[in-house]
């Protein structure tokens, strides 16, 4: 396997883990997926696949969802390559994905086409440029459902307009520990953005990972949406850094980080939740220079240790206890 996108590290990566851009498009000649028969879904898959495969410089792998196992599909969702909704029903759906997983295209989810570009670190301009280029090339081959007044049409009115969402995954352990996170979530929602747990939501956000995205798509240009997100991201990152300065004034923070590191290095069984709690502290220690570990290793572990993904790494189904044991073993190997 070639290197995946998350094995790189990017700008602002003490706080910003990754950036993604999603674009929703529908073919004008067909009803939206909710109103589309299975044979027509397969036709849409063929038509879009042909257009995608004609794009120069990219090589996509095509998979029909129904040919994949449940664990394979859920693993794709854990790696944020498909949505949980996409994973929950497989008939008539397909996925096109580049080898490094940085570009993925869901077919017949809520829209005929859901394009995603994902890059490490803080790279909204670059991610949008790539998504925009692919959208342009597809648009030469496919006639998209578009209305002069409402923009790109989708069965879901919340995606009208640009049909574009830009998001960043932020690591905010200090804002969580200083209890600022909930008021910041409320603040960003007033600015037309949303912030929620990247793994589990609300108070239950695992690993202190949060996804910040624009919610409004109609009446705002792609450029403005990207610029807004950039500006809010940089403000949140500055606040997180200030909060880190605060919590590092106490020896308790450094102590918690090294205890977490110790448990990860020596434990014999570990649940996903415990792993996410500990790896968050270790990531904080790593970007602080306390622990000699690069962020790419941390990000890779966060992806690989999720329940379905870890089960895929062995050739048989694992029960929860076996998974927890294997997880502890893999973490020890990675950190030794």
């Amino acid at each position, binding site marked *: 396997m070639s290197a995946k996108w998350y094995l790189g590290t990017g700008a602002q990566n003490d706080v910003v883990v990754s950036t993604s851009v999603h674009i929703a498009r529908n*073919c004008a000649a067909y009803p939206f997926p909710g109103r589309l028969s299975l044979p027509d879904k397969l036709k849409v898959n063929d038509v879009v696949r042909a257009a995608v495969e004609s794009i120069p410089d990219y090589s996509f792998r095509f998979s029909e969802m129904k040919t994949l196992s449940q664990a394979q599909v859920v693993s794709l969702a854990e790696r944020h390559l498909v949505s949980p909704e996409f*994973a929950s029903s497989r008939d008539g759906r397909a996925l096109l994905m580049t080898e490094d997983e940085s570009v993925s295209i869901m077919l017949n989810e809520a829209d005929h086409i859901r394009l995603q570009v994902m890059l490490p670190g803080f790279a909204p301009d670059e991610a949008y440029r790539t998504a925009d280029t692919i959208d342009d090339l597809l648009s030469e081959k496919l006639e998209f459902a578009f209305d002069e007044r409402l923009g790109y049409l989708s069965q879901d009115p919340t995606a009208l307009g640009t049909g574009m969402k830009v998001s960043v995954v932020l690591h905010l352990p200090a804002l969580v520990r200083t209890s600022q996170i909930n008021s910041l979530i409320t603040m960003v929602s007033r600015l037309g953005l949303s912030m929620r747990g990247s793994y589990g939501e609300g108070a239950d956000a695992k690993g202190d990972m949060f996804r910040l995205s624009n919610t409004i798509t109609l009446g705002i240009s792609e450029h403005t949406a990207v610029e807004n997100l950039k500006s809010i991201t940089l403000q949140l990152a500055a606040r997180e850094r200030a909060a880190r300065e605060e919590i590092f004034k106490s020896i308790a923070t450094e102590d918690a980080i090294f205890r977490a590191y110790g448990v990860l290095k020596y434990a014999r069984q570990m649940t996903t939740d415990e792993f996410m709690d500990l790896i968050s502290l270790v990531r904080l220690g790593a970007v602080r220079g306390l622990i000699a570990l690069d962020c790419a290793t941390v990000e890779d572990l966060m992806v690989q240790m999720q329940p379905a993904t870890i089960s895929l790494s062995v050739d048989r189904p694992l029960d929860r206890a076996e998974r927890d044991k294997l997880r502890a073993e893999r973490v020890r190997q990675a950190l030794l």
Partner: protein
Amino acid sequence: MLCQNCGKNDATVHLKRIVNGSAAEVHLCADCAYSLGYGDAFSGFGFGTGGLFADLFLKGENAAQLRCPGCGKTLDEVISGGLLGCAECYNTFYDKLVPTLRRLHGKSVHVGKRPNHPRGDRAAQLRRELDEAVARQDFELAARLRDEIGELTANGGDGQ
């Protein structure tokens, strides 16, 4: 069914999530769905915000029987399911949708990118001419333009 977050209101939003290695469904009321960040079509990037949209829909319209000529969906179905059936639905239900779109997005007119498909541009151009013709009450031209748009959109989208 009650909302799984607050346990008080009826759950109207049903979302798919990945929990411990399998896809699970969560049931939330519109308020909790919003406060948990599920207020848009891409959240998480899960969908199924239909219930949320239905809650936002301005009630009291007496046009529930209005039916889309493209896919047969009625306004009633759009309101209860929160989803439109095809591109033509947006023409059919446009007036009914605009107030709700303003509540959702704050605005109801697209700014930003346009498709560069040659046929798409032609259809858009013809639609503008059609609007002008209707405004001038030139119905003969309007009928011709409508037929031409119909032909363009009926056999479009296959990229050939």
